């Protein structure tokens, strides 16, 4: 009774519903690309990164080399490192198994859900609930998609492609509490958007870290004008 009234359970449920459609689609597309069921199951369980999995399957269809697929996938997943730095063991938990298992369920969504919480206890709870629920959902859905095909069809038909950025946005908004955070977010998004046409997938998002310079303490304007006067 208490659990169903918990807003986090309901919110995670909404995200899982969207993930089901994407997971089914991944399974179906991977099967169509010639991947056997065993590889799809192992990939979803151990790589467990939707973007990198779709990218890998796309590259296989396009005749990409093994090295190209590995490098492209790792570049796309490199953002997990700074995400892990941001949440740390305080969110994963100190027990060894929590660090080992908790690292694996790190996704954009589990990090966003954690950062949206105010206190450490709720943060840890949100991270684990999102992480475990999405992991199970993704694996069941992609396996089903591989076996029965994507009976639901293209996720875009249901607007799932709009649901995920909107969800991340809703989870990130509470973190934009001060001007510095807003500047960093806007600059980060701008850098990523401006560089996406020219760089391989994954790199533009990493370059968004350059937006951090906008969080540096602003020198007092009086000091700057004094310095300008002295040099002129």
């Amino acid at each position: 009774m208490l659990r169903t009234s918990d807003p986090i359970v309901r919110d995670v449920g909404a995200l899982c519903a969207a993930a089901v459609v994407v997971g089914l689609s991944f399974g179906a597309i991977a099967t169509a690309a010639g991947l056997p069921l065993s590889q799809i199951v192992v990939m979803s369980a151990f790589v467990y990164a939707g973007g990198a999995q779709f990218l890998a399957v796309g590259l296989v269809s396009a005749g990409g080399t093994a090295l190209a697929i590995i490098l492209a996938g790792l570049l796309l997943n490199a953002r997990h490192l700074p995400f892990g730095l941001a949440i740390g063991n305080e969110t994963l938990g100190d027990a060894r198994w929590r660090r080992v298992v908790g690292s694996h369920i790190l996704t954009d969504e589990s990090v966003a859900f954690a950062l949206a919480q105010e206190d450490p206890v709720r943060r840890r709870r949100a991270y684990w609930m999102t992480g475990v629920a999405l992991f199970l959902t993704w694996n069941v859905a992609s396996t089903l998609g591989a076996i029965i095909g994507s009976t639901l069809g293209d996720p875009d038909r249901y607007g799932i492609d709009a649901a995920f950025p909107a969800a991340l946005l809703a989870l990130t908004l509470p973190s934009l509490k001060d001007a510095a955070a807003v500047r960093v977010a806007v600059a980060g998004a701008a850098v990523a958007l401006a560089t996406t046409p020219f760089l391989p997938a994954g790199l533009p998002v990493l370059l968004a870290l350059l937006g951090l310079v906008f969080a540096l303490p602003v020198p007092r304007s009086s000091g700057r004008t004094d310095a300008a006067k002295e040099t002129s």
Partner: protein
Amino acid sequence: MSWIVIVVLAAGTYALRFAGPVLRSRITVSPAVGRYLTLAAIALLAALIGTAALLDGTSFVGVARPAGVVVGAVLAWRKLPFVVVVVAAALTAALLRLAGIQ
């Protein structure tokens, strides 16, 4: 796909995921540094939101998806429940497409 690709991709991805918390536990994180690490995550999330909302690969995705995200953003800003935000964003994009607007 070769099994080696899947194994290396899985091991590499896990290493990237595992490294962050381990590195953080090895260094002393002052409140100021902790703040920057959180801001770094915000920058990454903002970049993911921006590119996922507007781009399909490297080109503009069309009107339907950004329109859905904007509707979701307004509802989130007005502090409506998360479920409402997600469903409204999806519904907006889906209905626009149903109306022939990509």
